[in-house]
């Protein structure tokens, strides 16, 4: 795995919106009119222009999170990711976003205590390969994301209400149309992890569980019925997709996390087979 490959991948991540996300935004055009339609057109023009110029589509290049599957060499991979972030911050460039939470001091590297955020998630499909997903998440939408420890007696209705209420409370702040990542089960922090991880699934891929696929569709309907619309200026399209991940939880718990993602869902998948590097998108 070469640091240069990673820097290039980060540039791609920040400058080109995944085609499935752009497709959903384009789909929203037909449903919107007036100012809401004008806003979606401006977003699409921004996406086109950022790609053409090779510049980050949003000035909030976010905090990057890395999901890695590899056979071994965790420390080396973490070091290379840190070096790639340091270089990408200068070269892409990325806005220096990470600060000390107490003093608000900014070292200007997008690194610091607990960074880079890397999750090692078991082994790759083929022994010796490295597989990696990266997501870049801005503060506007992360700030309105939330975790709930629900009463298990509330059941699926409770889950639905938590999602709809989180999006409603977020209103215009997370730059709608949003994608909603939902993590159900696990424990407090695992549900939050699942909600973030849910955002990695392409919008074109249905949930493999039929009941959950239906639940996702139902939640899209409920969220869009809120009428928040593009940039919160009203309209039919508050969300362009709800994605759900789940895990088992304690018999006395029902953890639910809602990760609200702005329209600029910047994610990318990478693969190293020996020396061969591929961006899978």
């Amino acid at each position, binding site marked *: 795995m070469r640091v240069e490959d990673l820097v290039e991948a980060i540039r791609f991540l920040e400058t080109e919106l995944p085609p499935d996300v752009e497709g959903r935004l384009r789909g929203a055009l037909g449903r919107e009119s007036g100012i809401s339609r004008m*806003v979606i057109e401006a977003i699409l023009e921004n996406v086109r222009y*950022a790609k053409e110029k090779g510049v980050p589509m949003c*000035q*909030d290049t976010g905090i990057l999170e890395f999901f890695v599957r590899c056979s071994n060499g965790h420390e080396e991979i973490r070091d290379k990711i840190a070096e790639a972030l340091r270089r990408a911050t200068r070269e892409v460039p*990325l806005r220096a976003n990470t600060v000390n939470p107490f003093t608000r001091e900014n070292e200007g590297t997008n690194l610091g205590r607990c960074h880079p955020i890397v999750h090692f998630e078991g082994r790759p499909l083929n022994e010796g390969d490295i597989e990696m997903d990266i997501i870049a998440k801005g503060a506007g939408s992360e*700030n309105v994301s939330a975790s709930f420890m629900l009463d298990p007696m509330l059941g699926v209705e409770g889950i639905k209400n938590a999602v709809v209420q989180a999006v409603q409370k977020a*209103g215009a*702040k997370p730059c709608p149309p949003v994608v909603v990542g939902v993590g159900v089960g696990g424990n407090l922090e695992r549900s939050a992890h699942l909600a973030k991880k849910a955002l990695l699934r392409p919008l074109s891929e249905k949930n493999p569980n039929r009941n959950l696929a239906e639940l996702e569709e139902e939640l899209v309907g409920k969220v869009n019925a809120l009428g928040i619309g593009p940039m*919160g200026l009203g309209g039919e399209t508050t969300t362009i997709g709800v994605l759900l991940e789940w895990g088992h939880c304690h018999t006395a718990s029902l953890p639910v996390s809602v990760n609200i993602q*702005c329209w600029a869902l910047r994610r990318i998948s990478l693969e190293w087979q020996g020396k061969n590097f591929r961006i899978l998108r």
Partner: protein
Amino acid sequence: MDGRELSLKFNVNVRRLRTPLREEEIRSLRVGDVVYLSGTLYTMRDMAHVRALEVLRRGGKLPFDLRGEVIYHCGPLLKGEEVISAGPTTSMRMEGMEAELIRLTGLRGIIGKGGMGEKTAEALKKFGAVYMEFPGGAGALAARAINRVKEVHWRDLGDPEAVWLMEVEEFGPCVVTMDSSGEVFRKR
């Protein structure tokens, strides 16, 4: 697309304005109008608001004069002093400070995203200013309308929090969502 074409296409009222702005220009803007702004924008977000109010409350003077000017809730992404991407940040974080800043500086416009609260709405009405929204996340599009950086102040706050004076041409679309008559676009 020129203003007339835009107006027809989206059924909106398009206004082209140049800073500094006069009170009667601002008072003529209505919620739902779409503004394309030329002239100067002053980026001011969280820390710049805090510092400006510290200075003004002491009776001091800011190193830049905001009378008739437009501030922009934005923490730009720069390469040196070239603006690469510069969309708006969430305006509500400035709600607790904005009314006082309007009163003490005589600024005429605010650009941000997500809307602001009642205190700001009252100040806009009382002192004659408007709040406008540029599409959030459209940072590259915003940077395209920025010709150059004219000045930078308070860089010790860090580049995203510093005050960047940007020369802009046809910066928009900026939707007026709070006007100087007390009208607010969003029903809260």
